[in-house]
């Protein structure tokens, strides 16, 4: 019994073989081009960067975020980035079409990264919060009196400095969260702590006795909650608009409610007036 395919090739003339090969190569090249094009067209990376957020549990946050965004489009990849240093190196590689960024970072980079805000996160209907420098030492009344002293903060050193008026001769004790900064104060491991107002309120409930000794000496400017922004890499503006509409229903979405809760926010707002207030 003859093998048909083999027979078929044997019967082909030399010119036909060349033409067949050429056509195959062309098909392969077109396929590669199409694949590349479709990959390029469909790639939609979202980066979340908020050093003041819940970044300790990155794995769960990334997994919940991916679950939520992929329910909108399977082409979305969601990345959580913990430090500004990593962010700066990953931006070029990931070319994010959309980002959720801390407002202080947004203000610094909005020109260079061509950020355009689409929405802002909300907590209990508020879109900003304050942090306070507090102490339990009645002799400390101003920031200047903290010279050479220990200040506990859950924020990166650069942001702590930025929020408290620039370079200072403080020893900054970097802790994972506000509660740790408050405990540093309680156990006299820090002379002062930089904490959010709501953390201070929680501590007052937990430790009413020691809370009576807390003296606030400085309140930061308003720190806006993170923003959803398009970037200089955004090519699919229609997708960004649709994504914003999708995210407006985040708290009622099964995946979204769990994701936004994990980020410690309640909702988003695309109010233009509010967005315009972010410096």
């Amino acid at each position, binding site marked *: 019994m003859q093998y048909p395919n083999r027979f078929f090739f044997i019967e082909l003339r030399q010119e036909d073989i060349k033409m067949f090969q050429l056509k195959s190569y062309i098909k392969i090249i077109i396929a590669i081009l199409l694949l590349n094009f479709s990959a390029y067209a469909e790639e939609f990376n979202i980066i979340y960067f908020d050093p003041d957020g*819940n970044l*300790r*549990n990155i794995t*769960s946050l990334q997994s919940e975020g991916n679950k939520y965004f992929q329910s909108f489009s399977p082409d979305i990849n969601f990345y959580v980035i913990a430090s500004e240093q990593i962010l700066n190196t990953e931006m070029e590689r990931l070319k994010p079409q959309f980002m959720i960024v801390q407002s202080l970072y947004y203000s610094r980079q909005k020109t260079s990264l061509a950020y355009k805000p689409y929405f802002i996160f909300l907590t209990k209907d508020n879109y900003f919060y304050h942090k306070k420098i507090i102490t339990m030492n009645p002799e400390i009344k101003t920031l200047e009196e903290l010279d*050479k002293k*220990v200040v*506990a903060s859950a924020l990166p050193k650069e942001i702590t400095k930025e929020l408290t008026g620039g370079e200072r001769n403080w*020893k900054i*004790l*970097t*802790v*994972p*969260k506000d*509660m*740790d900064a408050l*405990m*540093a104060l*309680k*156990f006299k*491991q*820090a002379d002062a702590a930089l904490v959010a107002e709501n953390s201070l309120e*929680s*501590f007052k409930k*937990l*430790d*009413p*006795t020691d809370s009576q000794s807390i003296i606030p000496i400085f309140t930061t400017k308003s720190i806006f909650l993170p923003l959803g922004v398009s970037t200089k890499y955004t090519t699919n503006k229609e997708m960004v608009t649709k994504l914003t509409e999708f995210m407006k229903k985040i708290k009622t979405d099964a995946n979204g409610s769990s994701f936004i*809760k*994990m*980020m*410690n926010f309640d909702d988003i707002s695309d109010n233009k007036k509010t967005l315009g207030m972010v410096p």
Partner: protein
Amino acid sequence: MRIQIISSIISLLFLSCQTPTRMLEGMKFQPGKKKIFILVSEQISSFEVVKKSFMDEGKNDYQFLSLNLDGNYDGIDQLPAQVKKLNPDLILCIGSKSLESLAGKVRDIPILFAMVLDYQKFHPEKYGNIAGVSLNIPPETVFYNFKNYFGEINNYGVISSRDYIQTLKENKERLSNANINLTINETNSPEDVPTKYESMKKYIQALWMIPDPKVISEESFLFLVDSTISDKKSFIVYSEQFVKAGALFSTSPNYATIGSQLAIKSQQILEDKQKPSQVGISPIIGTFLTINKTTMKKLGLNIRMDGIDQIFE
């Protein structure tokens, strides 16, 4: 190529035969910045986190030389003399064996320590040149963090051997100021844990497990996991491994913060000229919180997850 491979193997063999003191012989600080010598007992990832965080904080101001004993304590008696010869401005000991090798033997150079269980047995207060960060997490830190997530739970129980009773009684008194009631049951054997738990369970809402080897065994731990779940009590432990195995919540040290605490202590000694005895020994400040979501569901609890460092299911 072959020669290179052979010479690498010979070097490795040579290095593996080196005693710690031999390895120190080749080390030398450069003139200029203040000198910190770091001695690490073993190759453990948490020790490395402490070291890295400490060095990152001081990289602009100090120069570092570091030796990891890697569990090889041959010739360790000669270490103090070798370290003195290096003449560092400050020594950081990470791990028990490294502190043990220098405490009381190097007395004219400030020593900081971290990651040392039962540091008291080295009597640091006796020498005046030792300060550090203990592995002690204050109970307030444990309960405040727990209450911050789980709400107004005020009645806690702990089963302990005689070794910790006095400390626990002192804690109980202090905690009562924060409206936290601690019931303490004493036992000196893991076999008695079920009886002790049964006798206290009606008075408590949550059980707190402390690192007491006279109380904890695999059997007693698993008994407590099952019993607390069936009695709808929260089970608070001191390590994420126990949460992975079924306990509800743990508060353990954040190792990077220990590095940050040590960096501040080194500045206080080297820049502010404070004595190590003034700088003192500090408790753990930074915490690592974990939760078991499956246990949480079994207990019918639903809490926010922001700030939780690791979630087990």
